[in-house]
């Protein structure tokens, strides 16, 4: 049966909730644990409306991005938003690093941490960028990149496609990071002390 009988919800509702309530994304190009299937289910307009109505009851809102979905909380307190921003902060340097690679890493890209580490090793500018990324204490570049990949996989921006070859794929949710970066407006603080960066979400 595709739908649960009580609420006429898709039977995967539980799986969807389990993923998104953790703060993770559901991307259309994710293959692990049937993520693409879940995406298709949410993306179905009928399902979407039902799911949205259902989750709204428990004060969750499904947000639709470019080929990905995630939860936001209705009336989210500012403290939560701040936490989100703090979480996001670390990604600025990572995205900067990814965008500076010879072969820019974008949605759908497949790569191995060793490749990035090697490129960083060969390019001083990239190496500095990598070393600048905070929160990681790994000694070798390779391990640092691995930790970044781990973090991004946990946050569902990457997917470990092949454990044997340690090959990662960039998921559509990566667009979320790019969208946020693009939404940051930087003001020159020379003019007024009051001006500050504004983040649109």
């Amino acid at each position: 049966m595709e739908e649960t009988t009580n609420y006429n919800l898709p039977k995967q509702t539980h799986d969807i909730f389990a993923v998104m309530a953790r703060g993770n994304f559901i991307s259309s190009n994710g293959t692990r644990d049937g993520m693409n299937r879940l995406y298709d289910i949410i993306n179905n307009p009928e399902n979407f409306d039902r799911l949205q109505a259902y989750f709204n009851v428990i004060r969750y809102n499904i947000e639709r991005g470019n080929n990905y979905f995630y939860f936001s909380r209705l009336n989210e307190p500012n403290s939560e938003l701040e936490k989100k921003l703090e979480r996001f902060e670390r990604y600025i340097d990572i995205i900067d690093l990814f965008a500076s690679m010879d072969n820019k890493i974008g949605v759908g890209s497949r790569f191995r941490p060793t490749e990035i580490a090697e490129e960083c090793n060969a390019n001083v500018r990239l190496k500095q960028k990598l070393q600048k990324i905070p929160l990681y204490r790994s000694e070798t570049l390779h391990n640092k990149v691995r930790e970044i990949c781990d973090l991004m996989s946990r946050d569902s921006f990457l997917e470990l496609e092949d454990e044997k070859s340690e090959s990662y794929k960039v998921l559509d949710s990566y667009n979320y990071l790019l969208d946020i970066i693009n939404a940051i407006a930087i003001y020159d603080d020379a003019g007024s002390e009051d001006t500050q960066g504004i983040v649109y979400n």
Partner: protein
Amino acid sequence: MENNCRILNRIVEINIANVKYTDLELNGNTCFVGTNNFGKTSLQRAILFFYSANTRGLGISSSQKPFEEHYFKFENSYLVYEIQTEQKPFFVIVYRHNKLVFRFVDAAYNPDFFFNENDEALKIKEILAGLDKRGIFFSQQIDTFERYRNILYGTETDKQLSKFYLLKGNEKYQNIPKSITNVFLSSKSSIDSRFIKDFIANSLTTDTSSIKLEQVDRQLRQFNEKYTDIETFLKKESQQLIEFIDKKYDQVHMLKGQQMEMADKLGSSLRYAETQNETVIKASQAKQEELDKLSENYEEQKTQLEEKQKDVREEIGYYDKSIREANKKLKEYKEKNIEAAVEKNTEREKLQVELNIARREYETLTSNVQSIEMKYSALIEQLRNDKTAYINKVNSKTSEIFNHYNELQLLQKNEYSKKETDLKQKREEALNELGAEVTAKQIEYNELKAEEKVIRNTRFYENEIKAQETELADLRAINYKNKSELAIKTNLVQTNQKEWENLENKLKTSLSNQIQKTNNEIIRVKAEIKAIEDKLNVQHDALYGYLEKNVKDWHTTIGKVVNEDLLFRTDLNPTLTDNKDVSLYGVSLKLDDVQVVSKSIEEYQFEKNERLAIIRDLEESLNQFQVSTNEEKMLAADKFGKQLGELKEDIKVLSYSLELAEKREKKLILELEDWKQRANTEIEEALTGNRQKLVIVEEELAVLNKRKNTLLNDFNEQFDKLKTFSEERIADLKNRQETEISELEVEKKNQVKEYEEKEAQLSSEKETNFKAKGVDSKEIKKIDARIKELQEALKEIEQYAQLVNDYLKDKRDIFDKLPDFIQKKEEFVKTANDLTTEIEEIARKYNVKRMELNKQKRAYEEELIEFNNGINYFTKNFRETPVFNKYADIIERAEPKKTNYSVMDLCTQLLKNDSHFNEEYTAFQRYVNEFAGKYRLENHFNFVIRNDATQGEYERFAQNLRSFVNENKIQLSIAETATQISLVTESIATKVKELSGQKDKIQHIISLIAEDFKKAEFEESKLIEYIKIRLEDSDNKVYKLLKRIQEFREENGLIYNEGLFNTDFSTHKNREISTRAVKLLDQLRTAIKEQEQEEIRLQDLFELKFNIKEGLNETGWTHKIDSIGSTGTDILVKAIIYITLLHVFIKESSHRSSSDFKVHCIIDEVGQISAHYLRELLRFAKARNIMMINGLPNKSGLESHYKYTYQFKREENNNVRIFPSIVTEVEA
């Protein structure tokens, strides 16, 4: 001795495993006693081998040696089985001849056949020779187990071998060895319905009759992966990405092409600049030399012509002066009325003659009065002389005065003339000076005009424009050709597409017809099967079943006369009457020649199977048809897809080249316009300069003309003044002259009057005297007057004589030559004009040539500057950039060639374009990554791109994707996947059907077992009250899903795969069915994953439940009985069940006529069973013609219940010796 039935009577082992020789009788219950590892089980296996003849199903684990190697170690290892028959026994020899082979020997076993006199086992050849020698029949070597079993179970058709049977089996005889084997192999298991299920299932099926879930899972995974890939491909986002990739690829490709073209141009320009530098310098120098030479030539020619012109001008001046002077003189002569004077002068001679005549007449008349005359003449003469003297004096004075004034006038005139000449000279000089200036300016003006003409006629950038025009013309020609080709190819695409569609429609129609036809046929056959099944289902309760049970050979009697429908009626209540005669309601019939109309159950079963086979065949052929249709579809897709792909690719290429050509044409037109504009600008610029100069020169000329006019006016004024002054002076002089002369004339007149009065007085005195002397004085007076008149006339003529003479002289010398002078002057003027024209012409030519050369030289110089600037720019600003590295190959390999672009422009453009290219390429790369990222790493389209892929790899990806789309490969993939889903469901359905087909058999077997349990006589011991068994539906989730798939398949036939993905031509129903099919397969896959089961076997198709009551204990309906009572009880129940099973199978699998045989039931380890129970068990078995072969670890008294007891003993050489134990059979 049981000698009235067939039974395995004896087993003889010769050199088998560790047994050197043993000969054991087995025609009764047999017990093997021996501790573990002494060879009990090995011997039991050897016995089992007799029944099963299958080395693999003997329970030998894979770690142990195979049966052949363990048992038949030697060349002379033999297993001999002796079979007792109703007549004489025969035996089978099993030996190894590479593999295990059999021979049937038509004699009772005799050790002499196998051993020589030294008790050594013979070789098979020797044995056979011995048998031959003894005249004993032995069979050919039986090479296969299958044939051996056929012989043993009585289905062999070879007459020589057909007697060597143990029992007559039917088509299911294979169940007998299987059952015996299963009992042996399962005897250690606990009592679980699963075991019974396994037992029944294993007996009914072969190893292959199971559904290997790994295989199904693989098929499902493959299908699912393909399905997901296609689904991903068909998604809107993917299609959008494909479009983006295609577009971006074109852009990137075009930009790359442009960049390469530009790089090639840059390379060409650079090479050209490097190679042409020296040449250009030399060419420039050559042009300078040419210019110098041209100037020199021009100056020389100009000088020559100017010299000539000077001479001509002098001539003109001379003639001009002469003409002017002649005209002046003529004017003067006219003023003096020269014409009248000349006319009068012509009468002079005539007047002179007339005078002379008059004088002579006078003299004649006066000859008579000479003296008077003389006196008076002297007086008059004197007077006249005086008068003449006076007149002369006055005249002289007048003349003096006249001359004096004339002289003064002349002087004045001379002075005037002199002054006029001076002034004229001055004027001429000034005019000449001004004229020279004007001429120079005029020349300059003419030169400028000529230059303008040259400029107007010069075609600037002619080569460039020509090159552009040629390129444009070529481009248009190619365009035209490409457009026609595009039209042709577009038509071809449409034609091919139509053809393809037609073919597909044809295939579709043919497939649906075939499906319809097959389904109809299947429905018909199913109806027949149902009819047969109905018959089979009711046969137990119908007349048929009754006859089967109660009337022997009824088929040959009743079967010939009874209606088939009647046989299966259940409402006939047949009963046997005492009348044993073969009659029909008392009428005896001779039925020998009547054909039997009734059919045996087997025949019905056979018919049913036949029909099932027909359905299978129909489905198979439909499948084949569908596969072949799909193959045809695929072939068509391959053929048309490829053609269409190629055509579409061509069209794309053509469209692209047309697009490029259009752009190029626009660009060329713009460039051409630009060149023309530049040429016009150049002309305009040159003309503007020229015009400005012209204006200046014109202005200067106007100024000069003004100056000339002013000068002329000034001089004219001066001339006028001078003339007026001179005329006034002359007039004054003339006035004074006239006054003085008139005064003198008046005086003279008075004096002359006095003289004339005196003369008149004298004349009158003379007259008077004459009259006096008679002389005609009147006549004399007349003549005298005539003379005076003539003298006056002559005097007047004389007065103008000088002037006329002068005039005549001038006329002769000057005036008559005046026309010649004018003529000559005109000729010289013409020559002068010609010379001017000539000078102008050579000046024009010189200027044109000079300009041309200057232009060429300037072009060379500019080119040189451009070369150097370009090379410098390239070295400083381009060589070190990555763009150079990117196109270094092209730049360095380019041929030196002149291009329309400068190196600097090319470098700048390349750098600019590269940045644009990078932007576009990044977008292109992003789209490719995003697209490839949508698929699994191992997707079957091979849409994979590594992150560190090269540009080439990205481009190849886009090319492949384009081919994929153009060749419509997705349709191939869809067709394949549709076929796959069809094959998967078909395969599942077939397997499930095949497997579930056995369910009826199970049902039958279970009913027989239940029946047999009922018949069991447990009453004696009262130990087991009853054993009940029943079938229930399977709980197996995977099987349930498999079954649903099979039902789905049967319900929907094979058509549903058409709806897979396809929304164009499939109906809504087809799509829905397809979706359901996909969902079912998906669920199955999940279930297989969750259940972790390797295969679905017959036993998974049903659940078996027991209900056993032992004493007061009742288990209730359960599929697993943990413990019924004591271990002994458990073993007993198990053994009872086994025996029942065996009995049922044997009964079912043997021919009905064959009942005189016994088989063995081999159950090891029955040591824990009590003697009482054992007895019960043996009896239970005996009642079912089954002999028990059991194993006991040691002697415990139980062995006394067996007919044969053998003991096992290991000897020193590790050999095992088996010997009979001396016991007495208590009861069996």
